């Protein structure tokens, strides 16, 4: 018997996640279809997801290492790790803001929990991130084999953490973005500003020297990046503080998304 995609009228959390689980074949298919269409009919296909950030990294690290007088070899993986993570966050959040609008044909036909349409962005984004991330790991193993240590077992924790932060965030943006179509544009600006005050391309020491500890210690993006940077670039475990910041951010976003969702989930269809 086919499973029933129609959940009860109330938006109970358990019910909601049961609905997401019941639709698992569907959202899994959606994200795989996104990947296929992204890579369809291009010669490098899948490898563009690695080549593109890699090319930009080489360019940037050449420029920045001259400006800041650091050595290019050590600086490049730093930029690359920041770039691929940030690229994932931006594409998931900005794409997520339009997720419901894009899925209107599905939303008008069947009643699945709406969060599956942002989960789609998160999953396809994470796949691209994993591809680029494995290039980073190979790079470091070849150029900096001394970094390899037990701390690397912390690296895979980036995946659930990224998912837990971006999924509720993207869903929150999608609820608002469906109502106010200005949001995706404004979001681009906000994320640009966040990029500017975060150690994504700029090295930590640049901030510390400028007495801008605030932008590191109280910045979730810094703590998020530390989860892969500490082990891969320095051979150290990420600190408990790093994890607390990441999980705290995820929790805050989840609360916000469920508060907004409680009011908006069922009304989204009117705005499509």
């Amino acid at each position, binding site marked *: *018997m*086919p*499973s*029933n*995609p*129609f*959940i009860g*009228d109330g938006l109970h959390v358990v019910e909601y996640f049961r609905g997401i689980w*019941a*639709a698992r*074949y*569907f959202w899994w*298919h959606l994200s795989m*279809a996104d990947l296929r*269409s992204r890579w*369809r009919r291009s010669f490098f296909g899948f490898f563009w997801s690695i080549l593109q950030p890699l090319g930009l990294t080489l360019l940037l690290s050449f420029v920045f290492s001259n400006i800041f007088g650091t050595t290019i070899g050590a600086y490049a993986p730093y930029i690359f790790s920041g770039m691929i993570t940030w690229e994932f966050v931006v594409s998931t959040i900005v794409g997520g803001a339009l997720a419901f609008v894009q899925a209107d*044909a*599905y939303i*008008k*036909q*069947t*009643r*699945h929990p709406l969060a599956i349409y942002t989960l789609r962005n998160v999953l396809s984004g994470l796949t691209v991130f994993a591809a680029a991330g494995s290039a980073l790991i190979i790079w470091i193993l070849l150029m900096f084999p001394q970094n390899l240590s037990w701390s690397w077992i912390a690296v895979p924790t980036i995946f659930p953490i990224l998912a837990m932060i971006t999924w509720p965030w993207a869903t929150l943006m999608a609820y608002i973005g469906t*109502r*106010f*179509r*200005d949001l995706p544009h404004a979001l681009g600006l906000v994320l640009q500003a966040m990029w500017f005050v975060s150690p994504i391309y700029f090295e930590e020491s640049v901030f510390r020297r400028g007495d801008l500890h605030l932008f590191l210690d109280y910045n979730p993006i810094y703590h998020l990046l530390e989860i892969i940077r500490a082990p891969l670039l320095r051979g150290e475990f990420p600190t408990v503080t790093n994890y607390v910041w990441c999980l705290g951010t995820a929790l805050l976003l989840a609360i916000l998304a469920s508060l907004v969702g409680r009011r908006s989930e*069922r*009304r989204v*269809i*009117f*705005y499509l």
Partner: protein
Amino acid sequence: MKNAIHLRNVNLHYASTAFKERSLKTLLASLASGKVARQEVSDIHALKDITLEITEGERVGLLGHNGAGKSTFLKMVAGLYPVSSGVRQVNGVVRALFDLSLGFEPDATGRENILYRGLLLGLTPKFMREIEDEVVAFADLGEFIDYPIKTYSAGMQVRLAFAISTAVGGDILLLDEVVGAGDANFMIKAKERILELVNRAEILILASHDFSTLKSMCTRGIVFHHGSIAFDGNIAEAVDVYCRINGVAAA
């Protein structure tokens, strides 16, 4: 649990904000201009205080003028539209056939889209592989089934959509007009298939303007008039009431 639909004092409003200020620009412009230029657009009261009960085995026809609330009613029963107030209780697997040709993936082949559509409807990949051949045979698109959907004509898309969507039934079947699809040959096949689905379903709700279809398929008729129920009872009487209210000569 027995398949049934219980509705008690159900109201449904379309939020007027959905078509009023939708961007920041119009919001700011209306604030800046100062004068109260906006004429008051109020919420649309699409369903008014609907109370009814549909139990297992019933065949219900919905009548009403355009905009009377038939489609809104179906979408509300399907759970797509939230009720503003009142109680909506639906027991059973709902299968709704409306907006059929929405949601195809143009770059994927017809065969791939069969799988995708099935997953959208909440079916498993395993189940879809089992029924694939039957769907392909019914759509009868020849070698086009392995071509991308974007090469299909509109009629071919509807045929495929129809073949997939009607491959699985449900306890509660919701139809917005008996779906006419494709050329004359296909229409005959389609009609038979719909009847088969109708026979298998425990509850049928059909919205239509075609009196003969309504009389042949339904036993109970509900007449909607400006969002309220004007009549609920025998289908033949319902047709008469509909004609009287709307000033149509009875067919």
